[in-house]
């Protein structure tokens, strides 16, 4: 499984699993967009707890989903970003549009 979805009231959590690269991104994109369209959430939370690897394809994929969320008038956040992945996100400045949720399992490591 490449991603899981959890819907709680008006929030949709998308839990990506495994490695995010150009190859796996396609399926993640299609599945995420389908679920966002179906749920029409007020907020989407991208959870990276189960992601072992990510390259810059992940940045592009998230920005694409962010645009989709904007179109339906929602907000986006991310959580459980490991230090390796955080470094890549920080380079792109993506946290300015998709902020990091405070609570994080990687804190203090």
């Amino acid at each position: 499984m490449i991603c899981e979805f959890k819907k709680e009231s008006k929030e949709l959590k998308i839990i990506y699993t495994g490695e995010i690269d150009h190859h796996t991104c396609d399926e993640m994109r299609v599945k995420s967009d389908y679920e966002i369209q179906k749920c029409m959430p007020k907020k989407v939370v991208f959870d990276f707890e189960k992601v072992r690897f990510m390259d810059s394809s992940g940045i592009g994929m998230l920005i694409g989903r962010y645009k989709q969320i904007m179109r339906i008038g929602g907000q986006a956040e991310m959580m459980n970003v490991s230090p390796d992945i955080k470094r890549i996100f920080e380079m792109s400045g993506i946290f300015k549009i998709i902020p990091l949720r405070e609570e994080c399992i990687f804190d203090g490591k």
Partner: protein
Amino acid sequence: MENEMTLEMKSKSNNEAFARVVVAAFASQLDPTIEELADIKTAVSEAVTNCIIHGYDGKEGTVHIHCVLNDRTIEIEIVDYGKGIENVEIARQPLYTSKPDLDRSGMGFTIMESFMDEVKVESIVGMGTKIKMKKVMKEAV
């Protein structure tokens, strides 16, 4: 220590994971830190993805990877025989992408440059592109 390896594979997107794992396994002979290994994996992933998406435009071709270990240094060459880059300087700029419609971030070269100690790009339009990257592992304590 001196060692060398060559990998040749089809420009298929499921080979992106294969390539970065092979290079990381080879680099592990230098006893790198986990962070150094993650840097190498990410840089290789970016370069190979560029060959597939840009060099060959998703069409079939061959990606050629050559690695040399010498002392504490790994040199990685990643080559495609695709369409080449017209203006390397522009292509290397952060956030520049020739394919914004594909949800590409334009961060590939920036990531290679910040994760590796040296990145050189040689490209000839119609002939292909060669990326030469170098990383020196910190002395093992």
